[in-house]
């Protein structure tokens, strides 16, 4: 049986791991390769690296990091952050990334999804969507959730699926950093609307939040950062608890 995935997310700045609380305050949480190795050993199903650095050397630094991560770990990982062209993706995949995640660049130029699908296949394209409720409707936000758009979350999700995304990583800006649980109503709606896997992100604070997002939110995978980085939740323990809840997990 296909299992539900637990995905630690490592925010990367200039080659180091950081995690923003509500995407603003940054705290150092270690060396990415070492952290990746630790998570792989603890039973993480997959990893996401999100590069938030904005330097000119960014591309080269990220490609080098991808190479070292691929060299060290034996579980799949996704790389995102500022990817905006076929060439960007080519470099990351060649260095050993399994999947890439695109966000603002896809909103600005949706054809990018089609181009990436044609060249690399859907299986390695994750479209990340940051959204927030404005007057009761979910609106897509850009630049790490800072800039609102008029685009409806659900319309956009359908479009990215049609254009060839292999997976959607949905972050609720209303829940991110709150530790009050995932946006399960919106997640369930997304999961019913599209026929590609949905990764839930934003709001993980305790073990039961993960169980809820798999049951109520119908998520295929759940992503979190700080609860893992600061050892508030151990992945092995989390998976045991999910198993007790009747959720299929890899142990």
């Amino acid at each position, binding site marked *: *049986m*296909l*299992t*539900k*995935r637990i995905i630690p997310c490592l925010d990367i700045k200039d080659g180091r791991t950081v995690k923003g609380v509500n995407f603003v305050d940054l705290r150092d949480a270690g060396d990415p390769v070492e952290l990746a190795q630790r998570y*792989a050993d603890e039973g993480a*199903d*997959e990893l996401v690296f999100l590069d938030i650095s904005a330097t000119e050397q960014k591309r080269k630094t990220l490609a080098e990091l991808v*190479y070292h991560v*691929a*060299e060290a770990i*034996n*579980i*799949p990982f996704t790389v995102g952050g500022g990817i905006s062209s076929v060439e960007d993706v080519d470099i990351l*995949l*060649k*260095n*050993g*990334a*399994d999947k890439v995640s695109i966000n603002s660049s896809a909103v600005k130029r949706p054809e990018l999804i089609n181009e990436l699908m*044609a*060249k*690399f*296949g*859907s*299986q*390695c394209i994750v479209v990340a969507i940051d959204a927030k409720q404005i007057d009761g409707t979910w609106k897509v936000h850009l630049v790490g959730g800072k800039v609102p758009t008029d685009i409806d979350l659900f319309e956009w999700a359908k479009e990215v699926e049609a254009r060839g995304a*292999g*997976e959607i990583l949905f972050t609720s800006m209303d829940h991110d950093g709150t530790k009050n649980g995932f946006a399960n109503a919106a997640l369930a709606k997304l999961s019913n609307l599209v*026929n*590609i*896997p949905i990764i839930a992100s934003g709001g993980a604070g305790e073990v039961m939040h993960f169980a809820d997002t798999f049951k109520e939110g119908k998520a*295929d*995978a759940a992503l979190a950062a700080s609860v893992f980085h600061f050892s508030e939740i151990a992945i092995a323990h989390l998976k045991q608890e999910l198993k007790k809840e009747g959720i299929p997990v*890899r142990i």
Partner: protein
Amino acid sequence: MKIIIIDYGAGNIQSIKFAIKRLGYNAVLSHDTEEILQADKVIFPGVGEASSAMKKLRASGLDGFIPKLKQPVLGICLGMQLMCRHSEEGNTQGLGIFDLEVHKFPNSVKVPQIGWNQIMGLKSDLFKGIPESSYIYLVHSFYAPLGKETIAMSDYAFPYSAALQKNNFYGVQFHPEKSSSIGEQIVRNFLNLS
């Protein structure tokens, strides 16, 4: 031991190269038929779309060459699918090593299947020491059904072939290079085949 990863411009080959390196061996990328013939083990990777991958194989003349290899050959993911007779993806004529037709998963399940699933009904030395129902990592929209060459099955919508074998040819739908310690053992088993 000389290990060649067939390089025909399809997909991410760095991961399998690293996986072999972690086991203490060095794998070389090549599309040179003379060099491939000298190899003890041949890996046939593949990620992406079937018809364009097959076009690349034909353009380099590898389509007629691969089925004649005598040493152990391991097709991974799309590599395994291309070793079948035909794929629904892009209506593609395959290498015809395995007598199976590759189809797309139905919409009753999410497509692609992404994540960790279990392998069962394990046969052949490729799975030596691997417990039944072990977890492996898969990413795919198309599948090979069960057939006489099936040496491992998995279940998504229905049981299908997770691995195939015919003589010296092996194919795995999953990514052993991304399947943690279980995958590592499967790669080691392949390298230990005689």
